[in-house]
């Protein structure tokens, strides 16, 4: 038994204690005692270990954009659709490839294994950090399955009195056509979590816990919020949520724990004295998970303490500013514009850039020293071809790449600025497709943005240089 297992409560230590109560020390656990009783493991195990026994690769630095996890009640219909698609895809893996560790059952079994069957991360300081790591990989897998690494889990903000029922998406429709549904819940769609379980006095008790030991627990005991509100909500939802071995089978688990994780985040922010444990025994706690590419990864408690910088999400309503991603390097992709004055994005380049975008990275188009009419202030739209420029369908239309304003510096209509007019466009995947010639030969063109029904004059792009850049957001540690 490792020292980590010694420090937690159940089931292994309870077995030992139990045996001691019966007068049997650990030494009495001779296998010959019940020699004939050995059963195959599968006959007894509720769930198998979630991972492969090989050496886990270290978790990679994550430099995707920092994006908000938002209250489940605020998701737009598109976002809810995406969430359901992600869980649908995860559930589909259960049948299409039961050995895929990203499947829903396999995901649920992680909780089963870590919470009783193999070890126990509850009732100790492992609780908050382990669940944060578990949700992080779960979130990445969901994102990967819908091809959007900018996907972030929502959270069920049961602490706000208006949101005490199960979030609508998880009960509507209230049958198995809904991938967010679970048929074992005790809570009906109209039932509410009792105020005494998640109300102000409970939240106040959690957020004002004075030390990490009181809030997050110790090596051998839980902190205040693990019982209430966390445990209470598990019991209130009921069904699979009431048991460690099955809680992960209810998709509500992940939005519930997202809110529990937010409480940890809020506790840290509530006071400068609310700091996490610096005990190396805590910081070096290490767990292993499969990532979105089925790579077996290890992650430590120290690696999850700052969810914004390390795990790339924040809580709260979407802020008006965009937090800068910690882009590792910008890699320049040269073109032969200087010679041919045309842009050719070959398939290989397009695919490479698309992959970076899928990971949550950035791809950009740069136009250097752009020539534009300088006799008036105007806003120009850039398109991939003269035809799409002529059609001028705007930001969500065909061939659109970006908008570029020319502002006159004085009323006399003179541009006094000597700065080169350089245009930088953040590319999306459809824009990449437009640039790679999917809609005809690429001949960059501008039109002046005016009201509807104008007959736009198409201006071919004249620029000293046109090139592309990409910024990968993650790579293996050296």
């Amino acid at each position, binding site marked *: 038994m490792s020292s980590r297992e010694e420090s937690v409560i159940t089931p292994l230590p309870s077995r030992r204690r139990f045996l001691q109560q019966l007068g049997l020390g650990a030494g009495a656990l001779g296998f010959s005692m019940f020699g004939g009783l*050995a059963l195959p493991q599968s006959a007894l195990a*509720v769930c198998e270990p979630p991972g492969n026994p090989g050496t886990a690769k270290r978790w990679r630095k994550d430099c995707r954009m920092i994006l908000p996890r938002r209250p489940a009640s605020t998701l737009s219909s598109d976002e809810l659709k995406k969430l359901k698609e992600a869980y649908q895809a995860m559930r589909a893996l259960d049948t299409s490839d039961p050995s895929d560790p990203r499947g829903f059952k396999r995901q649920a079994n992680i909780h089963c294994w870590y919470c009783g069957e193999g070890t126990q991360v509850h009732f100790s300081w492992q609780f908050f950090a382990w669940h944060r790591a578990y949700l992080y990989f779960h979130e990445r897998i969901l994102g990967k399955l819908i091809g959007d690494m900018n996907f972030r889990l929502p959270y069920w903000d049961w602490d706000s009195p208006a949101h005490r029922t199960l979030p609508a998406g998880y009960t509507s429709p209230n049958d198995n056509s809904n991938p967010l549904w679970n048929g074992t819940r005790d809570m009906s769609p109209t039932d509410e979590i009792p105020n*005494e379980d998640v109300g102000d006095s409970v939240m106040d008790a*959690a957020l004002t816990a004075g030390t990490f030991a009181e809030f997050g627990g110790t090596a051998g005991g839980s902190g205040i919020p693990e*019982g*209430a509100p966390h445990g209470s909500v598990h*019991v209130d939802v*009921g069904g699979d949520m*009431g048991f460690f071995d099955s809680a992960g089978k209810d998709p509500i688990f992940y939005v519930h724990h997202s809110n529990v994780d937010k409480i940890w985040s809020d506790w840290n922010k509530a006071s400068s004295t609310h700091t996490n444990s610096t005990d190396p025994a805590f910081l070096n706690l290490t767990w292993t998970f499969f990532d979105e590419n089925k790579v077996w990864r290890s992650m430590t408690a120290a690696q999850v303490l700052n969810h914004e910088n390390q795990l790339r999400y924040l809580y709260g309503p979407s802020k008006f500013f965009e937090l800068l991603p910690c882009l590792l390097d910008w890699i320049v992709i040269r073109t032969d514009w200087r010679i041919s004055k045309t842009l050719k994005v070959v398939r290989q380049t397009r695919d490479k850039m698309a992959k970076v975008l899928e990971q949550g990275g950035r791809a950009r188009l740069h136009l250097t020293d752009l020539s534009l009419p300088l006799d008036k202030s105007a806003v120009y739209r850039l398109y991939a071809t003269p035809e799409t420029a002529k059609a001028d369908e705007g930001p969500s239309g065909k061939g659109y790449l970006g908008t570029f304003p020319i502002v006159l510096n004085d009323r006399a209509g003179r541009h006094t600025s000597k700065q080169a007019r350089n245009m930088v466009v953040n590319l999306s995947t459809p824009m990449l497709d437009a640039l790679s010639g999917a809609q005809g030969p690429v001949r960059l063109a501008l039109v002046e943005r005016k009201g509807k029904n104008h007959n736009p004059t198409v201006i071919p792009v004249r620029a000293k240089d046109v090139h592309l850049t990409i910024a990968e957001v993650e790579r293996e540690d050296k």
Partner: protein
Amino acid sequence: MTRRVVFLVLSLIASLSMPAHADEEKHHFTVALPAQWEDATRIRLVLEGLTVPGDRPLKLRVTTVTDEQQTMVLGSAGIVAERRTRSEPQLLPTFRIDVTQSLKALPKRREGEQHLTIEIQAVDGRNVPLTDIDWSAENVRLETKQK
């Protein structure tokens, strides 16, 4: 895995020898009110040596009856069960329930009162008492954190 088999067999023997039901009085406790509890920033009920079923999710709900014969809820906290098929109990060395706001909101206590009588009930998600389960705590006490 053989150890698991041994354990299951042993726990089966033990569960047969455990009392089937708890008597009513077992879950009434008289706890000492710590000195200057009214000034404490946090007051918590500490349950030590807690044994709950491994196969029943429950909340432990703490109440007290006021002089006016009103039942007041002091606090409540949930315990996730290990699994539906677990026969052995779940043991928690310490389990804390915050009672700060509720205790301070109680009607004025009698001068010099040093103890509080409480009842702790195991309830389900709808706060319906679970009368058919057995749970116990070796010790129950109040703990305070001062500024």
